[in-house]
């Protein structure tokens, strides 16, 4: 499993890539691995407000249906629209082609709560122990 160093991670297994005041979010390699083959994806509309720790989307795999949680609070400025027709992209490339939404960050202070790659890997280890 891969966990790029330039990303931040949440306990709900989402990743965040921050560039200026926008944050790109997706699900981590660990999450897609745990979910198994993804068959359906539901994303918010552009312009919707999402909240840190609150569900903003739904991902369904052959195993289960799961909520996707906001890593940061903010307004959705872009969604990865083609992904809903090809949700398997999340399994194939969760960090690049499989990104989910871009958000205009409302509260930069929230970034302090995110984990870096090393902390996230330690967290997974603890969770699966």
């Amino acid at each position, binding site marked *: 499993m891969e966990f790029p160093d330039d990303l931040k991670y949440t306990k709900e297994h989402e990743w965040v890539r921050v560039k200026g005041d926008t944050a790109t979010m997706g699900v981590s390699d660990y999450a897609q691995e745990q979910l*198994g083959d993804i068959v*359906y994806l539901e994303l918010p509309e552009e312009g919707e407000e999402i909240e840190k720790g609150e569900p903003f989307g739904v991902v*369904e795999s052959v195993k289960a249906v799961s909520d996707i949680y906001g890593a940061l609070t903010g307004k959705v400025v872009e969604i990865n629209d083609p992904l809903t027709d090809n949700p398997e992209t999340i399994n194939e490339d969760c960090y690049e082609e499989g990104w989910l939404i871009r958000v205009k960050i409302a509260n930069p202070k929230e970034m302090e709560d995110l984990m870096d790659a090393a902390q996230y890997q330690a967290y997974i280890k603890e969770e699966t122990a």
Partner: protein
Amino acid sequence: MSTPGATGLILEEGLLFEQSVPGRIGFSLPAPDVPETDPKTKLSKNILRQKEAALPEISEVDSVRHFVRLSQQNYCKDAGLFPLGSCTMKYNPKTTEAAARISGFANSHPLASPEAMQGNLKLIYELQNYLAEISGMDFVTPWPAAGSHGELTGMLMIRAYHTAKGNPRKKVIIPDSAHGTNPASAAICQYDVVTLPSNKDGILTADAVKAVMDDNVAALMVTNPNTLGIFEENIQEICEIVHKKGGLVYCDGANLNALLGIVKLGEAGIDVLHFNLHKTFSTPHGGGGPGAGPVGVKKKLEPFLPTPLIIKENGTFKVERERPQSIGRVKAYFGNFGMLVRAYAYIREFGPQGLRHISEMAVLNSNYIRKGLEGAYHLPYSKPSLHECVFSDKFQKEKEIKTLDISKRLMDYGFHPFTIYFPLIVHGAMMIEPTESEPKASLDQFIEAMQKIAKECEENPELVKKAPHNTFRSRLDEVKAARELKLRWTV
């Protein structure tokens, strides 16, 4: 000893439409004794078909073979062990089937007058009382048609109760070890769901409940025993905490199979409890029903019970259809009445001692399997469990073998797989519930099969990864099945 898996003479079978031959007819009717009439001359155009219905044209023997062949491709409880955890697939005794087919029950009309269905009403009334006695609840409504329907009915009553007090409240607390339908039922009743994590022993603590309990919590929904098969031993203290803030406690009684004659959940402080007659009381289920999910309540919720109510007055039974504070009807007529007959017969057949013995055997069988597989498979929670046990694929993961592979391989040994990937709090969960129906010999065979698979995972992992090998079909493309649903036949 050997396990029962073998390849048999299972036959391919196409769709009836594919077997259709124009003009082939499977029946003969006597000549009509009234003149034939063309529907076009009698019926208005808007209700006539534009085209002939494309029904398959086949002979009688073809249609009989079609359904017999399909049934032979199926697996059922009457054929062998069906250890789906959380689903309680127990054997349905044939005496209860016979009871449901007694003409007076089977042929009674739902619109008959109460005078003409005294027997039916008496049976329902007595079943309500039996369920109340078994669970320690005050009243029982028998109408909901499924466990989830029971949850909805229960939550509607809870909402009506709070509304009558002036404030329906906003939140429902649900632990992460509860049944998956619980949050959906709460959300449909317009409540926000607060998820509460269970502790490292897999149960809910009083402190965790205390930390989230406030005046805006309408209810706590708990499954007991929970989805790990573990008894929520702090339930009494938890009920007190919830009650202190004016909240109610809903218990998902789907796992009641572990508690019959041993624990009365009502006495622990539960306010609303649903029963799955199609699990604990052995009425048939699978394939979507019909089920029955009666709901028991404490006295303070009695005004809100769904209509109709069956009242006993001077030895006769009356149907009360109107009640000012009732949540109203939840099901047409008298619920899935045939299921109520089966559950009634089951309870009467076993009696108090027998019911207790059922739970004791269910717990014993589950623990026999747990002990038999300990060491071969990872047990994520070491706390004693009741009627079901949950393992994970942690040991097998080192060989890159997953729960899915193990469950597929189990079919080669002649068993229906257990529940997989549930509960969600266990990664790669294997949830096993043998029920009390199984004789020791079949448990031993199951353990032997699982032990052999554990060994195969070590010695020949590819064999497991590519399983099943002996079944009618090998591994199906579940992804394609989910993404490209084909719901109707087309030429």
